């Protein structure tokens, strides 16, 4: 092992961090929106919508992300119809192909997290809201969704971490994020262990920060689960009792 090389490897791989974060955040963000719609379709009780969402989940959860990236990048470009369509400027770019694949994939997983959250909202709360005169979209926006998000947050935090790691697959379609740069450095230096140890450490650092952020958000959203601080009630001690006297 070449320890002096670790520093050099770190400096080579760090420029890949913005690309990794762009891929992870953009796709998780867009994916969350699709996930919400998918979860609502599943719970809508309307058969065609429900079955569409089920089929979507079956395909995107059931097949490897690697295969999905390959099919979207190399597969779609095979068809002249796709190359002549309005989508080509987007699909031509490896970055957007990766975003599309990651987004569609995380939407499938995320929709189940959201569905679980929506189902966990207690009936009593919904009834109470109805008693206050809320219904329809207002009920959903004010009561059901916030409660569902709070419930689903820990699982969604895990999904975010999984997405950060999943971005490493984007390197196979020529995107130079952390893993892409690492693979190039390995091919230049043949120092496999050193380079991937550094790459692994960078992912660990990113995910450490993300887990802290999600944990902080979780803490903020669940004040009702914490022990209440003593609300200014001071038990008299001998000294304070003496002063009063």
């Amino acid at each position, binding site marked *: 092992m070449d320890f002096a090389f670790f520093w050099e490897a770190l400096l080579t791989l760090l420029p890949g961090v913005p690309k990794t974060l762009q891929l992870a955040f953009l796709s998780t963000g867009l994916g969350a929106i699709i996930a919400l719609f998918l979860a609502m379709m599943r719970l809508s009780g309307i058969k065609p919508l429900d079955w569409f969402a089920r089929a979507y989940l079956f395909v995107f959860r059931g097949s490897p992300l690697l295969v999905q990236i390959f099919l979207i990048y190399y597969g779609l470009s095979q068809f002249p119809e796709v*190359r002549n369509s309005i989508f080509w400027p987007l699909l*031509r770019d*490896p970055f957007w192909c990766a975003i599309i694949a990651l987004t569609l994939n995380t939407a499938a997983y995320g929709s189940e997290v959201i569905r679980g959250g929506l189902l966990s909202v207690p009936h009593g709360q919904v009834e109470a809201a109805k008693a206050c005169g809320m219904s329809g979209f207002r009920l959903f926006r004010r009561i059901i969704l916030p409660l569902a998000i709070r419930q689903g947050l820990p699982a969604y935090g895990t999904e975010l971490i999984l997405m950060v790691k999943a971005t490493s697959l984007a390197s196979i379609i*020529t995107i130079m994020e952390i893993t892409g740069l690492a*693979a*190039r450095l390995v091919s*230049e230096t043949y120092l496999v262990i050193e380079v991937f140890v550094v790459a692994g450490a960078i992912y660990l650092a990113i995910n450490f920060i993300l887990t802290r952020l999600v944990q902080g958000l979780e803490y903020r959203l669940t004040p009702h689960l914490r022990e209440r601080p003593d609300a200014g009630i001071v038990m008299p001690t001998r000294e304070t009792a003496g002063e009063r006297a």
Partner: protein
Amino acid sequence: MNTWTRIAGAALTAVALMTAPAVAKEWTTVKLGTEGAFPPWNSTKADGTLEGFEIELADDLCARMEVKCEWVVQAWKGIIPALQAGKFDAIMSGMSATAKREKVIDFSQPYGSTGQTFGVLKDNDLAALPLQGIVFPLASKPEEAEKAIAEILPYFKGKVIGVQASSIAQGFLQKYFANTAEIREYGKTQEHDLDLLSGRVDAIVASMAYVSTAAKDPANEGLVQAGPRFQGGMLGRGSSIGLRKGSDDLKAMFDKAITAAKEDGTIKKLSEKWFGFDVTVY
């Protein structure tokens, strides 16, 4: 001799065998690593067996060395680490002997060289690159080669060039083209072919052998070779057999066999069969 001395003796023998495998090793079987996806050097047939220039050349070389050769298929990116890890004893996979690679592994003398060139679609403006087909050796005639590069460089302004990652062409592109064109790296050469056909990249750089074979493939409709050919210097001495550092006995065996195969015209004959031109390094 009691049991303990026998065990100790066996252990010592085992340690001796582990620490000094090369000292007295008589080669009977040599494992050769190949990518199996780099025609016409090596490729995998539909039934999973290997074929190509190197496969037939290895049959000839191994017969001359009086050893049995076995093929191990290994992805290109990890082929040097796999050699070092002992998955096979030698790399025979269209690998050029470059100074960079020589830092980590040894090479036999070269058994073939074709040079590097461009592949483009015939309706792309790069199809009109000048100096078509002319060979420029980077090492023996550096001024001429640099002049040729300067002449073709303006054509690549704002273009995207695809190249296999970890290949000698990639180093060449990074040095001369990185400031002019965008360079995209692919794991497999077939992948940059797909992106050339779909129009995501404007040109690919690969060996003359690879480009001319790809151009003949009916699946790559419209792909043509363009511009000059470059060889030597940073592009390596030519395809050589890669060996772990210190495999001097194996290197001597391969060198002797390659010399013999050159002299009796075996390499010329096989290269004309697989490439359509002579790739012997004289």
